[in-house]
């Protein structure tokens, strides 16, 4: 498995980063977070349609770019780095994966072109193997605020529901840059796109792909926190020296760099596995969430701490990354859930509770 970046991926990264540097600097992100509008639709159009990112993982015959989730992972890194307010994970990764398993090509083509977006009607905390069919109400759903279509898992299959038939109640979310909604779904006009078995597979595949690629977003978050903190401690002076010359600070940042380098290898492996539906993909995705979520949280916490007073302010963007990092660590399964899942997958069973 190639754990490095290909030239094509580096080109893609450069395009996405250029766009985000131009359209999505930290002060803009904070402004969006303070408004009622959850997503920057103009930014989404440029990312999804003009750069063609929405269709990266969609085959060319369905109107996509014919790349794979590996390339999507690079986009996720950049979106994480910028905390870009766009529904890429929910629509271009998770819903797109579910629709491919379900074989629903018309909606898939619309998602690929960026004309419409879709979201899975499950709480953002749902994980592979840890979700239940949606009831009439579903809480804490991500990437749904501006979605056109909902993918609703039911006991008898997977349905699409136009969001005009859905009451979306925005909730106050811990992560200011990834708004959540509670949903009340009217299924009168719902369309069944997969039977129970296929629907279950579609949802699990979406959650595995989501968990795998969320690791790349976490990597982007962690990398921003590391880079920003390193830049800060090089210039911030106390006691007549840059604080980055104190060993107490150097060693913390060295450890963080090591952790981020590890997260990169883990995230690349997970993206590579889900991109080719490798048999190791469930292990790779669980590993990715067991490892990269905590690394992003550590990076954001170190960023706040090592910035000292300024890091605790509303004005400095560090808090946006802290909130994103901690929320993603709870999203798509917590680290302990994924460790328990790994235990099953690699045959390291729980201790029996029976007394001999």
């Amino acid at each position: 498995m190639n754990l490095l970046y290909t030239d094509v991926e580096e080109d893609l990264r450069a395009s996405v980063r250029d766009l985000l540097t131009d359209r999505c600097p930290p002060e803009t992100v904070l402004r969006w977070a303070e408004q009622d509008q959850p997503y920057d639709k103009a930014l989404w159009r440029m990312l999804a349609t003009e750069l063609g990112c929405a269709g990266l993982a969609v085959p060319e015959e369905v109107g996509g770019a014919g790349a794979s989730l590996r390339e999507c992972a690079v986009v996720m890194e950049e979106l994480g780095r910028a905390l870009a307010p766009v529904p890429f994970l929910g629509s271009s990764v998770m819903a797109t994966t579910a629709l491919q398993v379900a074989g629903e090509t018309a909606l898939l083509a619309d998602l690929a072109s960026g004309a419409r977006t879709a979201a899975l009607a499950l709480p953002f905390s749902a994980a592979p193997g840890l979700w239940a069919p949606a009831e009439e109400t579903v809480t804490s759903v991500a990437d749904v605020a501006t979605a056109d279509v909902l993918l609703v898992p039911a006991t008898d299959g997977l349905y699409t529901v136009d969001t005009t038939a859905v009451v979306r109640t925005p909730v106050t979310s811990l992560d200011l840059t990834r708004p959540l909604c509670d949903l009340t779904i009217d299924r009168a006009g719902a369309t069944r796109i997969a039977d129970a078995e296929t629907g279950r597979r579609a949802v699990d595949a979406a959650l595995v792909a989501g968990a795998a690629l969320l690791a790349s977003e976490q990597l982007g978050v962690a990398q921003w926190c590391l880079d920003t903190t390193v830049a800060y401690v090089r210039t911030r002076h106390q006691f007549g020296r840059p604080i980055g010359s104190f060993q107490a600070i150097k060693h913390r940042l060295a450890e963080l760099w090591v952790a981020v380098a590890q997260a990169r290898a883990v995230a690349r492996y997970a993206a590579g596995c889900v991109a080719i539906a490798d048999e190791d993909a469930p292990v790779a995705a669980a590993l990715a969430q067991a490892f990269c979520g905590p690394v992003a949280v550590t990076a954001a916490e170190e960023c706040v701490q090592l910035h000292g007073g300024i890091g605790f302010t509303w004005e400095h963007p560090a808090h946006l990354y802290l909130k994103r990092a901690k929320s993603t660590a709870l999203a798509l399964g917590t680290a302990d859930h994924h460790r328990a899942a790994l235990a099953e997958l690699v045959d390291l069973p729980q201790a029996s509770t029976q007394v001999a």
Partner: protein
Amino acid sequence: MTSNGLRERVADFLTAHDPATTPRLEFLRARFDAGLAWVHFPDGLGGLGLPRELQTTVDGLFTAAGAPSNEPERIGIGLGMAAPTILRYGTDEQRKHFLRPLWTGEEVWCQLFSEPGAGSDLAALATRATREGDDWVVTGQKVWTSTAHQARWGILVARTDPDVPKHRGITYFVCDMTDPGVEVRPLRQLTGEAEFNEVFLTGVRIPDAHRIGDVGAGWQVAQTTLMNERVAIGGRAVPREGGMIGVVAGLWRTRPELRRAALHDALMRYWVEAEAARLTRERLRQQLAAGEPGPEGSAAKLVFARLNQEISAFELELLGEEGLRYDDWTMRQPSTVDFTGRSPGYRYLRAKGNSIEGGTSEILRTIIADRVLGLPAEARVDVQVPWKALPK
């Protein structure tokens, strides 16, 4: 040369030198001369000037053919540290003289770097080398020297100019370990065995022809050795559950009576950490395939040390009563570290050396902070001062 071309070359070699009938040493020498020893080395020096990653292919073909091995675990210091340094800084004559018997294992190498007064602060070393005609005369003491009792040669750093700041007065030599002025004494470790030695150098004569690099440039030359050492310690490619995690995972699977609920999540945390470390080493290996080891190797070594210590400690906890026993305190001088072949108590104790040997974890963090992250250097009192004026 393509991968296929290389395969053909190996096949031709094996036809010309039947591994079953060719004497071991003759086979190894011929393999070196055919450029199949380390393909990333230059033509005429055991290589073909090919990318480093192709060596894995070559090694696989030789192993599959039942070819005799140069027993890399026995000559790790030569292969991992002396060879890349000699290749980079040695003269043509030195390369031709040293590399072939180094690779075939005819000559074992050791590393004469650390001193009682110069561990982490290697540049403070006090072993003196004084010029006398065409020779250097060396006097001092080295410590933590593995394989010194078997070695033919030692890579040595010594002080040639005490009047300049410490980093600038060091020169790099190859020391003949059979010189009558070399005395090797085993140094017993907390595991009970003596993997390492103390080496006393008294009036050892080293010809100037065995100097590696310029006089006073020893510190820069030593950096190449140390970077490669850290890669050698932390950078081996291993399969999933290779190493210490495989030991405890195997124990967990085969000994259900040892399982306790509180230890399960700890086990899975280690499993996750070990697999992340493995993938990171694999990614580093892919990066290195084309180029030279950089300070990134320090990260692999840092993580390896921490995990090996934590997981070997976990093994003792998992074992409970059995952890109270030790296999053998007999003083021995092993030629390699048999980490998995010994008892859990030995693993726990030996792992304590992992964060000290090859650069302490503290020094590695400083290296990463300075060279990777570009953080400003700590305020120092020892850089602009002549070595002889430093407090000792």
